[in-house]
């Protein structure tokens, strides 16, 4: 387990996702990386029913799986007021969620996943994922993990160098937004600056980054319909289902 950084890869105009991924894969192999299997990260969101009457946002339970940790189920509950509690459990947790279908219903149309090839380069693991929601291509997420280091602040420059080396685009010198210094409340109720890039990295952090990105993709669908990923794999039908999601059903998903 090591520090992982997740980066969305901007799709240039007029290029298909499959083509870009193919190109990136070839570049990685030329760099000296070796191909080592496939990976999959998926996310399903359950929403509490019935929705609260007083207009308060409902609770959402996000259940994610990461093929890097095949025996675990990661879940994050968002109580609607911004508080998040995360949990790592055995796979059986999925079955327990099904026991609660009366209270928490799955929003099938927002099931989203990132799937693709996995490469190794020294102690780096690089994953080229194409994001799909309801079988429709949404974008490319690049995951890079440096297995032997547990603190982002130590190895960010290394990760940045590798990312720039094969992405071919500039990556800002600052830490990625997920690791940015943020204000947190201490147990004593005081506000305190917390530098997340100095924390010891945990597998949950990877999952949270995925959830952040997935939530962005879902929001795009809700707000812009099919405008984002023109020219993707799905051709003209891309994003169509997104248009049919009534905006009201998105209450409680992600943060405002």
């Amino acid at each position, binding site marked *: 387990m090591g520090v992982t950084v997740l980066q969305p890869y901007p799709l240039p105009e007029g290029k298909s996702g499959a083509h870009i991924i193919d190109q990136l894969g070839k570049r990685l192999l030329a760099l000296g990386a070796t191909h080592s299997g496939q990976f999959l990260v998926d996310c399903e969101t359950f929403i509490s029913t019935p929705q609260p009457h007083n207009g308060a946002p409902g609770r959402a339970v996000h259940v994610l799986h990461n093929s890097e940790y095949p025996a675990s189920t990661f879940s994050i509950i968002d109580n609607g007021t911004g508080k998040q509690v995360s949990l790592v459990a055995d796979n059986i947790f999925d079955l327990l969620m099904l026991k609660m279908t009366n209270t928490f219903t799955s929003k099938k149309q927002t099931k989203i996943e990132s799937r693709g090839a996995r490469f190794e380069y*020294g102690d780096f693991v690089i994953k080229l994922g194409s994001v799909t929601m309801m079988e429709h291509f949404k974008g490319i997420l690049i995951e890079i993990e*440096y297995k*032997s*280091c547990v*603190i982002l602040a*130590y*190895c960010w420059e290394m990760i940045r*160098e*590798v990312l720039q080396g094969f992405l071919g685009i500039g990556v800002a010198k600052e830490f990625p937004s997920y690791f940015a210094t943020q204000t947190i409340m201490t147990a004593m109720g005081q506000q305190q600056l917390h530098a997340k890039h100095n924390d010891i990295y945990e597998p949950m952090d990877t999952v949270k980054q995925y959830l952040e990105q997935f939530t962005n993709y879902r929001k795009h669908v809700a707000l812009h319909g099919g405008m984002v990923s023109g020219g993707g794999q799905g051709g003209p039908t891309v994003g169509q289902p997104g248009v049919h999601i009534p905006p009201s059903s998105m209450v409680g998903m992600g943060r405002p």
Partner: protein
Amino acid sequence: MDKLNSTLTAVKNLRSNVKQCFEHLADGTDGEGGEESRNKFVHDFQERFGAINSQLREVEQLINGLQVPPTAYSLGNTAYLAQETSQDRQALYPQLVNSYKWIDKVHDHSFLAFNNLNQNTLRRSYNYCSQKRQRLPFSSFNNDPDHIDKLLSEINTAPHTSYRIFRPFGTNAVAIVTISNVMKAAIVFKGVLIEWVTVKGFDEPLEHDDLWAESRYEVFRKVQEHAHSAMLHFFSPTLPDLAVKSYVTWLNSHIKLFLEPCKRCGKFVANGLPPTWRDLRTLEPFHEECRNC
């Protein structure tokens, strides 16, 4: 104890003489012989009988000379043999089975270890080849534990680095060094001579029962290789303390393993690895490929 021993010997002699005497009697004469052989037989018997008598006196004398021991002799666990015990009360059987298993295991392992160690000809601490010659005693590996404790506490000064010292087998120390949140290293000492170094990642287990397994990360396997060559570089039989101190200083320079780019090429990553080599004098970071050009 001496008296008891001589008494026991005397009793033994008496018994053997009595036995010989009876054997002599049982053999008898050949029957054909005349007066002469019969006389000789009786004479022999009387002689042996006399010897028995004198030995009997000797035994009696010795026994009288014995003192009653002030306390009962401590016979250790053998004393239990005389007691009638139920197996349950003593709980000896499970212990016996356990110790049997252990002895068996120890025997197997030491046999394998002996064979393996004998194949290694690059030893510095023991030199079996020179057994014929009288070799000079090597002062660096038979130092007393106090000295090593003192030495290790002296080097225990670098911030961000913690040392945990323990002695799994006898007096030789093993120090587990944790350098910030970057890496761990186990230094196995023999006296003050460094015998082995294992380097692992911060999130990998490094415990006293697992000192020899390699790191699962390429970078730390590489650092371990370098650590071994540095260990040989700093080795100095005449100034062993200084050798350990400079080695630990060198090892501590890995605190910025991921943070510093290579001094030669200015890059962080080469062949998927950070600059793993630290110059032995200047402690500057280099990639393995860059250090010799």
